[in-house]
């Protein structure tokens, strides 16, 4: 690990300002992704700004009947909150399907959203990777790509976003609340928050340099059956090959997003009108334009079958 200086931020605005004044600085929350990557020198920030202890760990009701989840609320506490379990069960289910008890105790809402890809070549510093080292090439294209993306990919990168939580937040139409170095705040819709790789796979979100996430805002609950189904190589403690997050209403209408297939939670609102007609109709539109590799073409079939299982469960 490269050496770095460390400070505890005094307020959210001061944290954002400190980040601007220290080029290359990073915020640290739970540390479960950042420190992992720093040990491998995939990340090498010269300065860390600890954003624990800023009072960003509350879950509070909003005026329009939703919830504001502080950026530092741990994944365990979020999944255990009775309001989340009853009104946003999809989110609780997605969180509980991820990582381990120990990791969820440390992992935070903001850190989870910003965790980086699990592409094996991103982790292997001996191999070219455009995300890790812009312009060096992509080892996954033509390499072992079983776990990688099938849609929204580019010539530069075919990585996926590994978060389960983000899939649920996308279905729930959550917004990410931030503060910038100049003190201004804004809200970014989950639909826009994560970017596709394009020519710049190292740029993963809409966040500006130094911009701090302060909360995630959940709109008023929408009811319906909440289902998160994660398919992986073992029954627990593994990242998704594919996952489906869905809310299905009694009349068969609903919302669906897919994890493990793209650089962001994959949702196509126009495909959702097909939900009453079943998984195949939905997937024809949801996955239109998919460009899988030979290794991961199975994901197309797997998404459809998993969605079918989810829709059966919703009816049952």
């Amino acid at each position, binding site marked *: *690990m490269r*050496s*770095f200086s460390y400070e505890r931020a005094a307020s959210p605005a001061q944290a954002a300002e400190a980040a601007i004044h220290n080029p290359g600085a990073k915020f640290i929350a*739970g540390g*479960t992704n950042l*420190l992992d990557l720093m040990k491998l020198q995939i990340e090498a920030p010269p300065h860390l700004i600890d954003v624990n202890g800023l009072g960003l760990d509350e879950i509070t009701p909003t005026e329009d009947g939703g919830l504001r989840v502080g950026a530092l609320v741990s994944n*365990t506490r979020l999944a255990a909150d009775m309001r989340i379990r*009853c009104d946003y069960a999809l989110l609780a289910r997605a969180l509980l399907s991820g990582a*381990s008890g120990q*990791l969820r105790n440390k992992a935070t809402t903001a850190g989870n959203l910003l965790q980086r890809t699990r592409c094996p070549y991103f982790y292997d510093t001996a191999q070219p990777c455009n995300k890790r080292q812009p312009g060096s090439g992509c080892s996954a294209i033509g390499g072992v790509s079983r776990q990688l993306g099938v849609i929204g990919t580019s010539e530069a990168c075919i990585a996926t976003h590994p978060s389960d939580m983000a899939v649920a937040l996308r279905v729930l139409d959550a917004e990410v609340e931030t503060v910038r170095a100049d003190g201004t705040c804004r809200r970014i819709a989950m639909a826009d928050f994560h970017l596709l790789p394009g020519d710049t796979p190292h740029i993963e979100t809409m966040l500006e340099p130094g911009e701090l996430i302060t909360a995630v805002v959940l709109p008023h609950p929408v009811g319906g059956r909440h289902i998160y189904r994660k398919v992986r190589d073992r029954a627990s403690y593994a990242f998704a090959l594919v996952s489906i997050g869905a809310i299905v209403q009694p009349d068969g209408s609903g919302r669906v997003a897919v994890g493990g297939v793209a650089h962001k939670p994959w949702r196509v609102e126009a495909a959702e009108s097909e939900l009453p007609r079943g998984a195949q109709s939905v997937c024809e539109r949801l996955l239109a334009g998919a460009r899988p590799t030979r290794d991961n073409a199975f994901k197309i079939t797997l998404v459809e079958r998993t969605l079918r299982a989810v829709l059966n469960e919703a009816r049952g």
Partner: protein
Amino acid sequence: MKVRLVVNGTPHELNLDTRTSLLDALREHLHLTGTKKGCDHGQCGACTVLVDGVRINSCLTLAVMHEGDRVTTIEGLGTPERLHPMQAAFVRHDGYQCGYCTPGQICSAIAVLDEINEGIPSHVTERLDGAPELSADELRERMTGNVCRCGAYSNIVDAISEIAGSRA
């Protein structure tokens, strides 16, 4: 950088490189070698300790982020003469072979029972609107972050089940 930790009830003031993980602070600086380093990347659970009663992977956290925190390691749970009930249960049920994962398993197991007690759900909890059960399936899922290379899993579940039963 200076950091104060209360480890197993004893206050310590350490002067550490900011890079020092909590795990290395415990092992290399406080010479509490009961806590083990397996992967150093959050994947195996050998480094599990309790911080203010909550189980975490001590390899994936910086010591300087724990100013004033109360850390409990396997050394703080019991002594060879007076074992913690969970330690005694692991011995009774042969919940280990080589023993390398055991300190992490025991710290994790104690926290698992507290988490169930507090009503925190898991991936296998059937109903999210009620309290989780104390079933073997629940224990297995909740212990998933503690890998045992020797495969002592079934005896580990037996040991935890015994203590869970005596608590319930």
